[in-house]
């Protein structure tokens, strides 16, 4: 007579893939919110992105409030 037994095992190993994904999100997110001065949109918009500064304006107040140097 056999019956299935449920066991709960705690695993500590973190998949390296998950770490890489999170590290990328960290770097890109920090750059967009804290540092972009038109760099990202310049890929599609060209030089005008450095004058319009869409991302800078979008994140402007958060930059100040979170302590990033802004301008």
């Amino acid at each position: 007579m056999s019956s299935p037994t449920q066991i709960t095992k705690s695993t500590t190993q973190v998949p390296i893939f998950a770490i890489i994904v999170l590290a990328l999100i960290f770097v890109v997110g920090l750059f967009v919110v804290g540092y972009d001065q038109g760099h990202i949109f310049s890929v599609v918009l060209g030089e005008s992105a450095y004058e319009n500064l869409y991302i800078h304006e979008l994140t402007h107040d958060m930059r100040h409030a979170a302590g990033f140097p802004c301008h």
Partner: protein
Amino acid sequence: MKTILFLAIVLVSGALAGTIHGVANLAIVEPYLDEAIGIENQNLFASGEEEDTPAFWVEYDAYRDWQKGGQVLAGAMLGTSMGALFGIVYALSRNVLPKGSDLKKSFTLAGVMWFTIYIIPFLKYPANPPTVGDAETVVLRAILYLVFIAISGFGVVGFYQLYKRLQSKSKILSIVGYAVFIGIVFVLMPANPDEVTAPMDLVNGFRAMSVVAVSVFWVSIAIIFGGLWHKLRPDTENSEIQN
């Protein structure tokens, strides 16, 4: 580890805590930003770069509304980004965080990260409202701030390695070691080159509220992340064994 669940917990808790941060800013930091930008406007009128006309204010209000709304979105993005870092460190250090519930663990880690990668860098390079800051030095200031955060963060990781290797009686040495190390870095790092030209009442009020709002973020992420982890347990695997 249930990878997808783990990633979902990290991203959701970061985005939520970041949104809370953005809303907290709207409530307590914005009045100072408005006041500071008001000074900038007066300077523009005084120098003749802009004219104090109704058209100016219509454009200005629309622009400020966009910035204010934008910062809640920016909060969600920054929160997701910082949450990703938090998630990495949590997953790698969970076994050595204090025994007990995941809420206790996440509070401990959030406290360490808040102190070492926010408060200490803030004491050296405090946040400034608009009107303070020379555009010529923004790249230098951005680099200094980021470098100091990185040195402090990696310093913690380094001294944590020492902490693990020391006998329990001497573990305190690693904390003292970090304090001495970061104290030296604090003194050696160049100061912010800009003069603070705005009224000090405004700057100090802004800085205090800025610290409160960022602290709200760290408390929020500790609660949300720890709570979700506790409920959903991404670190467990259920398997059925036939006896």
